[in-house]
């Protein structure tokens, strides 16, 4: 079991709040940029022939002697996409980065479904694979979690840009994207993120790392084997090398964070050894979620 019931209940207090309004597919609880038939007044519009006479504000006509019709907000669902990295590099750490990430994914999906948003979870490594069909009812969470539990991190990272292209083909409607990954894609990562930004997706980048990646427990001569392409790097690790590693890692993370901020995206670093609940709360605080 990824979660217990008690934790699920605590998630009910959270919701995803976006910076802007997205058009939805179904009736939901979120205000849409489209005008619709909800009870919430949006604006007045001068009457033109052909407009529905039912929405003419007669009181205003009495005062101004001009015809105006009342427009109302439309309430639609939010398209929440969760992209979960299932490359082999995610299987490192204790608990593994993948376990940590899919817990976050399940929690986000649960929160989305609680507010009648449409949630879809995709796994990506060698390509983009939808883990489950889009869910929009609360009951769909069980099906999604079942799929999540069956998924494992065994793939090999390929072009992230291709993953994003594939994702954009399937999702023509902009929405919120939660990208859960360890960001080991090289320059390809930035190209993919650019395309997401270009298509107006509100992206939340969750960088999943293990403490061992931040502070490697290495010393002396070692041969490092890449988990995905099995390439080897031989080196003698000492204090100088470790310092340099930390410096390079910090630079890499800073570069990613700067890029995301510039593109209007959000960056959140999540360590696998931190309390999951606090990680989630921080994530939603950072990404505009509200309790």
């Amino acid at each position, binding site marked *: 079991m990824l979660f217990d019931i008690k934790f699920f209940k605590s998630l009910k207090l959270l919701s995803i709040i976006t910076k802007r309004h997205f058009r939805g597919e179904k009736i939901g609880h979120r205000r849409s940029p489209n005008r619709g038939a909800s009870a919430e007044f949006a604006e007045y519009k001068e009457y033109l022939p052909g407009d529905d006479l039912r929405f003419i504000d007669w009181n205003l006509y009495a005062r101004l002697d001009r015809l105006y019709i009342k427009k109302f907000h439309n309430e639609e669902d939010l398209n929440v996409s969760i992209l979960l990295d299932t490359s082999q590099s995610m299987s490192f750490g204790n608990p593994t*980065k993948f376990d940590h990430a899919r817990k976050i994914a399940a929690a986000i999906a649960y929160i989305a479904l609680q507010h009648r948003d449409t949630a879809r979870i995709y796994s990506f490594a060698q390509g983009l694979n939808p883990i489950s069909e889009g869910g929009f009812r609360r009951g769909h969470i069980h099906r999604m979690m079942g799929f999540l539990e069956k998924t494992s991190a065994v793939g090999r990272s390929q072009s992230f840009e291709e993953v994003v292209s594939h994702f954009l083909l399937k999702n023509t409607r902009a929405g919120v994207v939660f990208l859960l990954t360890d960001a080991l894609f090289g320059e390809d990562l930035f190209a993919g993120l650019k395309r997401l930004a270009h298509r107006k997706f509100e992206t939340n980048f969750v960088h999943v790392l293990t403490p061992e990646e931040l502070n490697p427990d290495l010393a002396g*001569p070692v041969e*490092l*084997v890449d988990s995905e392409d099995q390439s080897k790097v031989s080196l003698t690790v000492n204090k100088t090398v470790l310092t340099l590693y930390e410096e390079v890692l910090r630079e890499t993370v800073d570069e990613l964070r700067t890029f995301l901020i510039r593109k209007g995206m959000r960056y959140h670093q999540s360590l696998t050894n931190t309390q999951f609940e606090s990680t989630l709360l921080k994530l939603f605080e950072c990404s505009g979620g509200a309790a």
Partner: protein
Amino acid sequence: MLRGRGVSFLNPGFLAGLLLLGPVIALYFLKTRPRTRPVPSNAIWRIVLSRVNPNSFLQRFHNSLFLLLQILSIVLAVLATARPIGSFWSSGQSSRIIILDVSASMQAVDVKPSRFSMAQKRAAELCRNFSGRVALYSIGHSLMPVVRYTDATEGVANAVMKLIPGHQATPGSDRVLRLLRDLEGLSPDEIFLLTDTPDLQIRRDFMPQTALTVETFGREGANVAIVGADLAFDESGKNVEVTLSVLSDNFVPVEISLSFQGEDGRLSRLQSLTLPYQGVHSVDLPAFAAKRGTIVLDAPPERNLSLADDRWYFSDPGLKPSVGIMAPSDSALLRLPKALPLISFTRIGAAFPADLPDAVLGLGSLPIEARKLPTCAFLPGQGSLQPGEILPWEADHPLLKFANWDAVPVKCMKPGTLPGTPLVESVEGSLLSEEVVTLDGRQISHVWVAMDPDHPSVQGNFFIPILLFNILEHLLRDKFPRLSYPVGNPGLAALWKGPAPTAAGLFEIPGGKGNIAAVNLEAPSEAHLTPASSRTPTSTQLAGHAGRAQENSPWKGVLSVGMVLLLAEWFLFMRRN
């Protein structure tokens, strides 16, 4: 000794141990195979590699804590073994042991006046020129203390001059080194061994805490000698069968011939052979008819610089020597006849017989007549003498003034040449004195031993019969029946044509036209009459000249730190793995 500004090294040769660092460092880098570690991605590490080369020698070295600890340990251990000293911690009193070789070959006169005299002079000089504690030991069959540690160096020098060489053989190199090792407990700073034995194989690390100096006396040369003979008459009693031990002290093969010289002086060739290597060779001669005569060895003169040890005399033993025993009827001395059938024993009462025996053994003091014979008197160490069993010696020998032999002053005791003298100590007695007096032109041996062979505490002691046999052999060395003797043995009255020398050494044969004979050089090691040139002292030996005290030297501390570092490394290694 290597001297720096404040610190010097007593064993600078050990600093060569620093060369160990080379192999240790090399082995370290050879042995440190990289451990394989899977990582999520090598991307970051590749960037690290592009910025710095962590595989460079310096980077690897920088990382190697274990290696650094090892290097430190080795450096400290090497420094410790090099024995650093400095004026600020060198303050105690140093000690020196002088060992003088009293073996028979020291009497050789190839250097003037003799090897022993030269060694004696050198030993006295070593005593007088030293300000610390000095001890004097003699080495013959074994190592014997003459004077224990004392500050009175002049007294030790005088004791040196009183020593006389015996007819014992210096033990082999291994045994000498073992005997020297026994002195380690005395913690001497220096040991000087004054000897003529050139073949001591001393390793550089032998007794590293002591500066050992070997000084040899004698000339360099080559020699071939008959050093032993096993002779027996065949069943007919007419022919003699001979197996000789022939020593070659040459590094090249030597051709020799062996001849028999009868009483008429004629030589008859027995055998010719080649001695292929340096060492003792066993040679079986064909049996030949003779009752007595000399076996003569002939070798090229350039390979045989000492001609005195090339002859071996043999003779039909003749009559048994007789020994008188003056002891109560239940004394252990009266059991000797059963043990020694080659000697005729007679019990002597209070009155001395008209027919004098060849030697006398007695409990307590002896009658005046006994002074005319070689004697051995066993004097009880404690308690009074028993009336009726102890016969009065009507004389004034200084030893007889003492009933408590532990109170006898050292000046009365003369270091003995008695074979097996340590046996006396092994039966808890002490050799009070051994002297040779000349009476009517005859040299007569007397031995006084502070021990009671009948005392319950020594009954059953394994060494008692051996001691008695050795004493008798010593007293009767002129008359003890033997089939063969090396030339020069005192038993060779016929050859010697007069009183033969009793002490070992090289002597000119009376009427022998300048020919010199070796006397009592009975051991192969003593046939090395011509030792090699003086030894070059090793660094260990040179250290002995530093004249220092070691009590406060820091080497033990340095070594301890090295050991602690090694332990720390082991601890870290165990924790890490």
